[in-house]
């Protein structure tokens, strides 16, 4: 592995933000140690020279599986909204994301 970093507390906080996880100080401290321990286990892969090896994204040799482009049955608005924490008409409610909108 070309780059093998040790995660600092700031790195852990940055990754948590990227992952949209609100973590407590206790969780961040625990994760800092655990993630570094797990990343150490990944080091074993650097023993292998894979420069000439093609990556495998999936193991079955299926190609271009497409279905007919025809309309089919779908969920009704009520079904799609049945689990919504907050609903207004046929919409999910989220906080305002555009300044000046109401």
């Amino acid at each position, binding site marked *: 592995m070309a780059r093998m970093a040790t995660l600092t507390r700031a790195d852990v906080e940055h990754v948590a933000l990227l*992952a949209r*996880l609100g973590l407590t100080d206790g*969780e961040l401290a625990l994760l800092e140690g655990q993630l570094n321990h797990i990343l150490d286990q990944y080091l074993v*892969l650097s023993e292998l020279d894979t420069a000439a090896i*093609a990556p*495998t994204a999936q193991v079955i040799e299926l190609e271009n599986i497409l279905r007919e482009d025809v309309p089919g049955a779908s969920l009704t608005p009520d079904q799609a909204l049945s689990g919504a924490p907050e609903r207004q008409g046929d919409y999910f409610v989220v906080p305002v994301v555009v300044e000046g909108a109401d």
Partner: protein
Amino acid sequence: MTRLFAHEMARGLRAGDYSSREVVDAHVELAHATDRGLHAWLFLDDARARAAADAADARLAGARRAGTAALADLPALLGIPVALKDLVVTRGQTSTAGSRILEGYVGSFDAHIAERIAAAGAVVLGKTNMDEFAMGSSTEHSAWGPTANPWALDRVPGGSSGGSAAAVAAYHCAAAIGTDTGGSIRQPAAMCGVVGMKPTYGRVSRYGIIAFASSLDQVGALGRDVRDVAALLQTVAGRDGRDSTSSPIAVPDYATSLPEDDDAAARVLRGLRLGLPREYFVPGMDPGVEARLREAVRALEAAGAEIVDVSLPHTDYGLATYYIIAPAEASANLARYDGIRFGHSVRDGDVLANYLASRGSGFGDEVKRRIMLGTYALSAGYYDAYYVKAQQVRTLIKADFDAAFEDVDAIVAPTSPTVAFPLGARLADPVAMYLADAWTLPVSVAGLPGMSVPCGLSEGLPVGLQIVGRAWDEEGVLRIGRAYEAITADADWRGLEPSALPLLADPAISAPRLPAPALPA
């Protein structure tokens, strides 16, 4: 009645010895009476199960009037009680995948396999406990509390399909659906002393299965013998247009190649070449597990199989490869849990604050750990070093198996290095937990079919023999498993029931609990 195999129940139902309603009532009552100390189930839906049983009885009665040909044409699992893992979405029932973030989520559609099971007339009793989003090897990572092992209530049932394995072992149902991403069917099957099959990646549609790692996830079956597992796999396998990875390759009729007669079943082994990977016998393996494995291999050899020493040289890289690929894919799949459209939601200010609060309080520790690992492995500057590297090593791991299968018909190996470990024993050390799957992970990384069958006890706890086949050769794996059952039919351990079952009958028993966590405040 709960002690019967599904194929025995099927015979009795066709003969009119008893009704599906009687069979289902017996299982539902036993599950209610003995699950308090086991916690295999997240819910039992008695009313729906009884309605399905009555419908099965009506089908049976109709076929009986129509004659023997109509009876013979009935689906194998008609009227038979089964379980779904809690990540199989069904209309009008909850599916939480063991996570608080899906608390109260009620499906508005049926998973493909739920449709197939309903069409076959099998009776779903409810949904079983699991590690949150199937991330775990012990079922301790369920938001709803752990499941106990029916052989020792202070031990884990394995995971992540631990609820399904425990429910089958405790006779609450004849068979159960599980899913396997890195060992989540085979390892709990081994630890609970039942049979569990993960078919080839792509064999079963995942439409309606709550996703963990999409290049690895596969649906499979658990049961108390190979024929029951084959019947459930048969029920759900095959192409579905709603999952583009589900394969059009034809599914053979498994029942015709799994003889009831032991002598006929054992004949499969004559001249069969079975590979024994030398890398799977390493220090750290329980001596008792190794002893049972060696005995199983000797039994297969004595029945006419040729045991061939094979090498899977990249075995030791399987763990790291898996623990890069699976968390990376999970971090993408679990991005959908946003607290806006369904499930757990915390409103804490603006959109970003809502995401942070909903996800931070909705996911458990192991899921957060994996999302963090995956997000890091996919982040700018590290993608090539981790994710691409792991996918390259995946090529090497698959090539190991391809090379081995040029020389042998199947591979036999231990399922897990140890028997079931005590509840709480590995929670503080994620790497030790991950090692429980060291010999199932490479099989998943290569996408191959693998099955665990019981092969005896060590320290009074079940040990599993893993049988791995070529891609799409579930039939060959099942035949070898059935043959192994046949040649060990008279073994003293075959007749044993899980040793903690009598304790579970105590109505005052407490629910399984984890020891107090050794975490900083």
